[in-house]
């Protein structure tokens, strides 16, 4: 109790005298950054996960080509999940003399579990949000159905053995997700109509989805997984391969790396300021020991002080972090389509935990060292405590850092090598700087010019100079890396959605209509993609063996009609990964993912059948394709020689500004066979998600920057006392303020230059690794950064250091007489 009281008193006095400012500032900023990032990340990922879940129709989905066991739905019910079932298949609708192959989707009562269906009462009516689904006997249909069947809303169409009334125009399905390339126009019906229609039977190609919405996703997944058989696949929002979830995944990874860097930076700031704090308190410890305090008492005293300080700073930091995350959410609000779920206790525990771990790892060792201060220091000021073993200090710091990271990142192994590599690089560079400065010192002439003198002065303080360069360069390296990553991600997203991404797909264009349609499009404000010939075909054999069907793959490309095309012009966002472009003779270029699924490499033989005509080709190249690009893309691109003589239709996509939408209707009547699919809704949605995550990524950068400033501040503080003393002495020896100003600018400038060069080396290495390992992006070092960053660093550190030293110029040199 006495220790606690004394500790509180001492803490209070230190606080009042400003001794604790740097340490407290570093900790508060660190805690605030961690709190804001963990809170925001959790809420956003939950929120964005929700949105993603909407895209696939539930928090967990069983996708299947065989009827799933109804027990599995009941299982979800027992675990508190809401469930629904959808059945999709192609079926023919009749209206008078007209008939049409439609994509039917039959849904159970609770559908949709997430989001809402949207309809129109007629073509020009505003969108209407639906709370339910069509009642039995009614159908909500794609507007194209009305066109093609020559029908009006209210008409009745034949569907199998029953009749359906066309009730509304279906404008939006929340779980449209991947079904962008659904060729047949949609008919949405009540699942109760399946029975009377008798459209289902043996051999009907029906695709089932069991949708689940609820909390205990892991539990449900665990109990479902062992029961699933061949043909059933479990999918979760993050498994889904679509642009939004890909962007979400990368943004989440980015946020996690950003918070990791914020923590590393905070650790540096805390270590630096704690060291300074302890060095300034040797006298206090010596005095306490003189007055009879035993070593354990002093240890206890400082542990209590640190605990009180950490608790207070953690609370303040958490408050700031919470406010900051509210601020960030307010900025993001226009982009957030749904209310975000509140954060659970985890971010708070992580925040408080990381505050204590940071302090235990980085502040405790130097502070504990104070307990070893020999009492004789009271008489002999040159006596300092015996240094703790370096291994002990770095061991404690390393262990706490790792456990902190473990707390925040469950997939630590991903980034651990990068982190270790960076730490090793920095340590090695630090040693090199130390040794290099020692050498330089011997070479420079004592009475040389400004630069020589600055180098010599830095060399004279090799230890602190090396520490400062390491702190600056590490900070700068992390900031550069995170900024580079941000550029990479934002560029990739921008590439995915160019300003005028095609918002219409046109297909079933007959060869005789092609020139006229091309002419019509050219005259219109539309921005066209190339036209591709499309031949339907089926893969029959791979190297003379039948292709192996994949379990549960709804889009089983090995066993379905494929869109085959031929061209000599490589589509804009395709890249040849292997082999030769273009395909010559009897050869085909194959998309990388498809090739992987089939287990096919360059040189393999494939056999196809199209309309009874069988042909063999050799794989001549493997391509990467940006499926998210909204441009026409193909698994298989042949040479003209193979497909040129087969009956073909054409396919393209184009961008049409909203005010010219009426043109589509005109073209549809002009070219009756053609189908046009509008994808504005999907693009808008993707745009929303991308802008949302881009902005978050930008805002997160601000936090990392802020911790970076804390390091800069703490690193400059480490030598502030020495500089104050040295400055006063220099002035008593006749140095003018201009002289000192020049000296500070030169010294800090040199520190900054060295830090800038090291940071560029480090960030190029780290970015290259992160780009390839984590984000799957290409990395190219930028010569502009190499030319600018070292000098920017030089200027920035020179100015920051100079500003920090202004105090030296103001303080009276007479203080030397009072020491």
């Amino acid at each position, binding site marked *: 109790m006495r220790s606690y009281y004394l500790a509180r008193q001492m803490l209070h006095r230190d606080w009042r005298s400003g001794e604790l400012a740097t340490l407290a500032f570093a900790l508060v900023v660190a805690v605030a950054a961690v709190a804001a990032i963990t809170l925001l990340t959790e809420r956003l990922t939950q929120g964005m996960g929700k949105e993603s879940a909407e895209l696939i129709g539930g928090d967990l989905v069983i996708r299947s080509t065989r009827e799933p066991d109804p027990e599995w739905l009941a299982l979800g019910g027992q675990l508190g999940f809401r469930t629904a079932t959808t059945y999709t298949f192609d079926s023919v609708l009749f209206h008078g003399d007209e008939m049409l192959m439609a994509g039917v989707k039959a849904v159970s009562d609770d559908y949709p579990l997430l989001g809402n269906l949207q309809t129109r009462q007629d073509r020009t009516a505003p969108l209407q949000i639906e709370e339910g689904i069509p009642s039995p006997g009614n159908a909500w249909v794609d507007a194209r159905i009305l066109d093609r069947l020559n029908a009006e809303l209210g008409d009745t169409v034949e569907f199998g053995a029953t009749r359906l009334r066309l009730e509304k125009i279906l404008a939006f399905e929340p779980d449209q997700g991947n079904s962008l390339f659904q060729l047949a126009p949609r008919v949405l019906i009540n699942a109760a109509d399946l029975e009377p229609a008798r459209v289902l039977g043996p051999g009907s190609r029906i695709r089932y989805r069991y949708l689940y919405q609820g909390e205990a996703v892991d539990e449900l997944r665990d109990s479902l997984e062992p029961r699933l058989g061949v043909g059933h696949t479990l999918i979760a929002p993050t498994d889904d391969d679509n642009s939004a979830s890909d962007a979400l995944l990368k943004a989440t990874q980015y946020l996690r790396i950003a918070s990791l860097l914020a923590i590393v930076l905070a650790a540096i700031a805390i270590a630096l300021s704690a060291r300074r704090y302890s060095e300034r308190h040797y006298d206090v410890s010596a005095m306490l020991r003189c007055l009879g305090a035993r070593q354990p008492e002093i240890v206890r005293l400082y542990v209590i002080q640190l605990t009180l300080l950490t608790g207070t700073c953690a609370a303040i930091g958490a408050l700031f972090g919470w406010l900051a995350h509210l601020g960030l959410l307010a900025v993001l609000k226009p982009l957030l389509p749904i209310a975000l779920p509140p954060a659970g206790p985890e971010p708070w525990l992580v925040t408080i935990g990381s505050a204590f771990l940071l302090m235990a790892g980085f502040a405790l060792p130097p502070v504990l060292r104070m307990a070893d201060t020999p009492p004789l220091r009271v008489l002999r000021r040159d006596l300092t405590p015996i240094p703790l073993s370096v291994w002990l200090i770095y061991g404690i710091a390393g262990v706490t850092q790792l456990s902190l990271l473990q707390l925040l990142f469950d997939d630590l192994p991903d980034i651990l090598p990068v982190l270790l590599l960076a730490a090793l690089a920095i340590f090695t560079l630090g040693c090199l700087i130390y040794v290099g400065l020692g050498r330089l010192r011997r070479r420079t002439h004592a*009475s040389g010019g400004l630069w020589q003198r600055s180098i010599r002065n830095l060399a*004279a*303080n090799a230890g602190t100079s090396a520490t400062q360069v390491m702190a600056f360069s590490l900070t700068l390296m992390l900031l550069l890396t995170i900024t580079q990553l941000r550029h990479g991600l934002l560029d990739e997203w921008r590439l995915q959605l160019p300003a005028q991404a095609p918002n219409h797909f046109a297909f079933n264009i007959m060869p005789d209509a092609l020139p006229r349609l091309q002419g019509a499009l050219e005259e219109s404000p539309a921005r066209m993609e190339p036209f591709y010939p499309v031949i339907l075909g089926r893969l029959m054999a791979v190297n003379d063996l039948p292709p192996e069907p994949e379990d549960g793959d709804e889009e089983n490309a090995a066993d379905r009609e494929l869109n085959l095309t031929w061209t000599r012009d490589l589509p804009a966002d395709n890249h040849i990964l292997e082999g030769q472009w273009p395909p010559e003779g009897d050869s085909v270029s194959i998309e990388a993912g498809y090739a992987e699924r089939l287990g096919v490499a360059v040189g393999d033989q494939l056999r196809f059948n199209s309309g009874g005509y069988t042909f063999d080709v050799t794989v001549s190249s493997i391509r990467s394709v940006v499926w998210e690009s909204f441009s026409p893309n193909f698994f298989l691109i042949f040479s003209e020689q193979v497909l040129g003589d087969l009956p073909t239709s054409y396919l393209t996509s184009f961008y049409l500004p909203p005010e010219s939408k009426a043109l589509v209707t005109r073209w549809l009547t002009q070219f009756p066979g053609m189908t046009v699919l509008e994808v504005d809704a999907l693009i808008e949605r993707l745009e929303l998600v991308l802008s949302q995550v881009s902005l978050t990524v930008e805002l997160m950068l601000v936090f990392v920057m802020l911790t970076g400033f804390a390091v800069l501040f703490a690193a400059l503080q480490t030598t502030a006392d020495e500089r104050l*003393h040295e400055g006063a002495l220099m002035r*008593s020896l006749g140095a003018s*303020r201009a002289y000192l100003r020049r000296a500070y600018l030169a010294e800090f400038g040199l520190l900054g230059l060295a830090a800038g060069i090291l940071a560029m080396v480090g960030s190029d290495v780290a970015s290259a690794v992160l780009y390839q390992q984590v984000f799957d992006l290409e990395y190219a070092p930028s010569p502009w950064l190499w030319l600018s960053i070292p000098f920017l660093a030089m200027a920035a550190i020179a100015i920051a250091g100079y500003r920090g030293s202004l105090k030296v110029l103001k303080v009276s040199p007479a203080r030397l007489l009072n020491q």
Partner: protein
Amino acid sequence: MDNQQDRILDVANVDKSVQVGDGGLDILSGISFTIKAGETVAIVGVSGSGKSTLLSILAGLDRPTRGLVTLCGQPLNNLDEDGRAAVRGQHVGFVFQSFHLLPNLTALENVLLPMEVLGRQNAEETAATLLERVGLSRRLSHYPRQLSGGEQQRVAIARAFVTAPDIVFADEPTGNLDSSTGQSVIDLLFDVNREKRTTLVLVTHDPALADRCGRRLRLDGGRLQEEAPAESPLPEVRNAR
């Protein structure tokens, strides 16, 4: 007959007061005296009598509240801090009680420091000779932490004289040393001072040290009195120590 050229330090009606709480505290009042080139002057007084404050005003480290200080022909009142720094660099050397050597510089580098500030080239020889003179010829590349207190003060003496100043101010130069080390340091200080024909002003409360100076000025309650030089120290003063 005072020759204007001989007067190295002129102090006229100097007051110094500081703000403490609501009121002012007078530390020095009505101080006037003159020091001629080559003199050795001790400023003595009890602790808190304002000795160090007076010294910092004389050396241009601090400004008086009122009054005029002329150092080496330069009226300090008219100069800003940089102007006073220039005067210090050109004309003044310092020896401090706690040495104030820079811990990361070797003995030689510490002595070279004032030369660097003045931008004087090829000063190493001068510095090395001076260190030799103070008996540290084998310690040139040692750091302050590798030197004893007495040795550190010798380095400080070499630093004070390296620029060949006109006047050296010493603030309790033996205050941090034991008496025998202090004695030898003082011998050295006086010897070098005599060799270099420098004026020496030192602040001390050590009567023995004060007695070695040609003049003795006593500060009492902020006022200065000239004391008669004691050719032989009084026995009772010795006993009092």
